[in-house]
C-alpha cells in the first residue's frame, strides 16, 4: 500500500450507485432480519439469578432493608399468634370450668329490699330436670377478724357465708391448704378461707393451727381455697358450714346465691325457667347470670387490643416497604452504569424492569420469610413461658408472606419503571 491510496473523501460525495444497491439489499433483507436476529431473551432462572446476584453484591443494604419488612411481618405474625394462643388458653380455662354454671341471686331491682332468695330455692331448683347440681351460699351477716382485738369496723371487706359441702363440686373449686367442709365438719365451728381473704387475714399456710375471731367466737381454719374462676366473690369470703351457722349464729338460711350446674345442651332453656321456678310470684326479682360470659367478654376485650397491635404491625410493615422502595430508588440512581451496560449487551426495557422488580420482590419475601420465622419464635417462646398452647394461625403465615410479596411488588414498581427509563447513552457516556 503506498501513500497515494490514502484519500480524503467528503462524505456527501458518497458513491450514489453503491448506495442504491445497498437500499435494494436492505429492503429485500428486512423480512429476513426479523427471522435472522432472534429477539433478546432472558430465562426465568436468569431473572432470579441476576436479581439475587445484585442483592448479594450489596449485602448490608439488602439485609437492612429486608429487616424493615421482617420486623413488620414478625409483629403481625406474633400478634396473631399470641392472641390466638392466649385466647385458646382462656377458652381452655372456660372449657375446664364449664360454661354450664348459672348463678342465681336476688334481684337488686325495684322492690327487692332484702337481698335473699326464698328459703326453698335450692330444693325447687334441684327439681328441674336439666339441673345437674346445686349449691348455695347464705349470708351470715357477721364480721371476721384475725383476733378479738381488731376493731369491729375493720372487716377488711371480707364477707362471711354459710354453705354446704357440695359447693366445691358445683364450682369446680380446689383447695390450696387443708380441707373443705365435709358432712362431718359442716356443723362444727370451723371455717374455710377464700384465696383473697386468706391473704388479707395473713394466713399463708396451715402448718400451725390458725384461729379466726368470727362473729364473736373463735373458729379454727380448716382450709384455704384456690381462687374461684367463676365465683370471684367467694375469694373474698370466709365460709362456714350451714348447720354450724344455724347452731352458732342463729341464721335463717335464705340463699344469697345459688350456683346451678345445668345440662350443657339445655343451658338457655333452663335459664329461662329458673326464675319462675324459684319465685313464681315475682320472677323478675330473681337475677340469673352466667359467669363464663364474663371470661368470654374478657377474651373479646383482648381481641380489641389485638386489633390495635395489628394496626401497629401494619404501620411497621408499611415503613419496611418504604425502606425497600427507598433502597431501590437509590439503587437505580447508583446503578445507572450497570443499567446502561445491560442495555448495551441486549437487555430490553422490560428486562431491566423485571430485574428491579425481582430484586424488590426478593428483598421483601426474604424479609417476609425471616419475619414469619421471628414471629413464630416470639409466639413460641412467650406462649411457652405463659404455659399456653402454641397456636400459629395459618392466616398469619400465609397472610404474612403474601403481604410481604405485595409490599415488595408495590415498593419495586416505581423504581423498576424508573430503571427501565434510564437513558443508556447518558449512563454510559465516557466524559
Amino acid at each position, binding site marked *: 500500500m503506498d501513500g497515494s491510496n490514502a484519500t480524503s473523501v467528503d462524505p456527501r460525495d458518497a458513491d450514489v450507485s453503491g448506495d442504491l444497491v445497498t437500499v435494494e439489499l*436492505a429492503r429485500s*433483507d428486512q423480512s429476513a432480519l426479523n427471522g435472522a436476529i432472534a429477539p433478546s431473551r432472558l430465562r426465568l432462572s436468569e431473572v432470579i439469578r441476576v436479581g439475587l446476584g445484585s442483592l448479594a453484591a450489596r449485602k448490608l443494604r439488602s439485609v437492612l432493608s429486608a429487616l424493615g419488612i421482617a420486623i413488620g411481618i414478625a409483629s403481625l405474625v406474633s400478634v396473631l399468634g399470641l392472641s390466638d394462643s392466649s385466647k385458646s388458653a382462656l377458652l381452655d380455662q372456660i372449657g375446664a370450668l364449664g360454661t354450664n354454671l348459672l348463678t342465681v341471686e336476688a334481684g337488686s331491682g325495684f322492690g327487692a329490699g332484702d337481698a335473699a332468695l326464698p328459703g326453698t330455692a335450692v330444693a325447687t331448683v334441684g327439681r328441674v330436670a336439666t339441673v345437674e347440681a346445686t349449691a348455695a351460699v347464705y349470708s351470715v351477716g357477721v364480721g371476721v377478724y384475725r383476733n378479738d382485738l381488731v376493731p369491729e369496723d375493720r372487716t377488711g371487706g371480707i364477707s362471711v357465708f354459710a354453705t354446704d359441702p357440695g359447693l366445691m363440686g358445683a364450682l369446680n373449686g380446689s383447695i390450696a391448704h387443708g380441707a373443705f367442709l365435709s358432712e362431718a365438719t359442716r356443723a362444727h365451728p370451723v371455717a374455710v378461707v377464700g384465696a383473697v381473704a386468706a391473704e388479707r387475714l395473713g394466713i399463708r399456710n396451715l402448718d400451725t393451727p390458725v384461729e379466726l375471731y368470727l362473729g364473736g367466737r373463735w373458729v379454727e381454719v380448716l382450709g384455704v381455697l384456690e381462687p374461684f374462676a367463676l365465683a370471684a366473690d367467694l375469694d373474698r369470703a370466709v365460709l362456714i358450714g350451714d348447720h354450724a351457722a344455724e347452731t352458732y349464729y342463729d341464721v335463717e338460711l335464705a340463699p344469697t346465691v345459688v350456683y346451678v350446674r345445668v345440662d350443657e345442651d339445655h343451658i338457655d332453656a333452663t335459664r329461662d325457667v329458673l326464675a319462675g321456678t324459684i319465685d313464681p310470684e315475682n320472677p323478675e326479682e330473681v337475677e340469673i347470670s352466667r359467669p363464663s360470659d364474663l371470661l368470654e367478654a374478657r377474651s373479646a376485650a383482648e381481641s380489641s387490643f389485638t386489633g390495635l397491635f395489628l394496626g401497629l404491625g401494619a404501620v411497621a410493615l408499611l415503613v419496611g416497604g418504604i425502606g425497600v422502595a427507598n433502597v431501590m430508588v437509590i439503587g437505580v440512581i447508583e446503578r445507572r452504569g*450497570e443499567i446502561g451496560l445491560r442495555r448495551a449487551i*441486549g437487555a430490553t426495557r422490560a428486562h431491566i424492569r423485571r430485574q428491579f422488580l425481582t430484586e424488590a420482590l426478593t428483598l421483601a419475601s426474604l424479609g417476609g420469610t425471616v419475619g414469619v420465622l421471628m414471629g413464630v419464635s416470639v409466639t413460641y417462646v412467650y406462649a411457652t413461658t405463659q404455659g399456653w398452647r402454641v397456636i400459629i394461625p395459618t392466616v398469619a403465615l400465609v397472610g404474612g408472606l403474601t403481604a410481604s410479596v405485595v409490599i415488595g411488588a408495590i415498593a419495586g414498581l416505581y423504581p423498576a419503571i424508573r430503571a427501565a427509563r434510564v437513558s443508556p447513552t447518558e449512563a454510559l457516556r465516557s466524559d
Partner: protein
Amino acid sequence: MNPAAPAIELRDVSKRYAGSPPVIALDRVTVQICQGEMVAVVGQSGSGKSTMLHVMGTLDQPTSGSVLIEGIDTSALPDDRLAAIRGRRVGFVFQRFFLLPGIPTIDNVANGLLYTGTSRSERRTAAEAVLDRVGLGDRMWHRPNELSGGETQRVAVARALVHRPAFILADEPTGNLDSASSASIMDLFHSLHSEGRTIVIVTHNESIAAALPRRLHILDGRLERDVRGSSGC
C-alpha cells in the same frame, strides 16, 4: 443480514437534544463502515463522537436520517428489536469498563451472552474460549477488583466478543489506562482486526488514531474529514 452490505451505514443522520438552545450532537452525517474495517472516530470532547458511536450501536436513535446495521434499516424498529441487534450483532467496549463488581471474570464475560437465552454452561464455555483469546485464561475466577486496569479492559473486550458480534464499538477504550496498558489494549484491537473483525474506536488520542487505517474526524457534530488508506467497501 446481508454479507455484502456495509457493517454499519449512517445516512444523513442528525441527532438533536432538546433544550435552550438545542444541542446538535450529530449534523447530517453520512458514512459507511465496511466489513473488516478498523476505524477511529476522532474529535474533541463534546464533538459528538460518543453520540455517533451510540447511534451506530442502536443505543441511541437519530432525530432524523437512518442507521443500517448489515443492511438492515433500524429506524423503525421497536425497543426489543434494537435490544436484540445489540445483544447479538454489536459488541460495546467502554472507557469505564462497567464490569459487575463481586462476580468473577468468567461470568462478567459470559454476561455478554446473557440476553440471548443461552444456557449458563454454554455461556461459560464461550467465555472461557474468549478469555483465552485475549490472554486472560489464568484470570477466569478473579473478581474485577483483583485485576489491573489493562486486564479489566481486556475482560470488557472479551465480553464484547463473546457473542461473535458483527462489529465492535469502543468508546475511549484507553481513556482510563496508563500508556503501557493502552498500548497493550490497542495491540489487542489490531490483532482482532487482523483476524477480520470490524472495529470502530472513539478516541481523542491523536497517536492512537494515527495508527488506525481509517479516521473519521468529527467537529461540532459534523463529519469533517474521512481519511482512509483504501477506498470503499
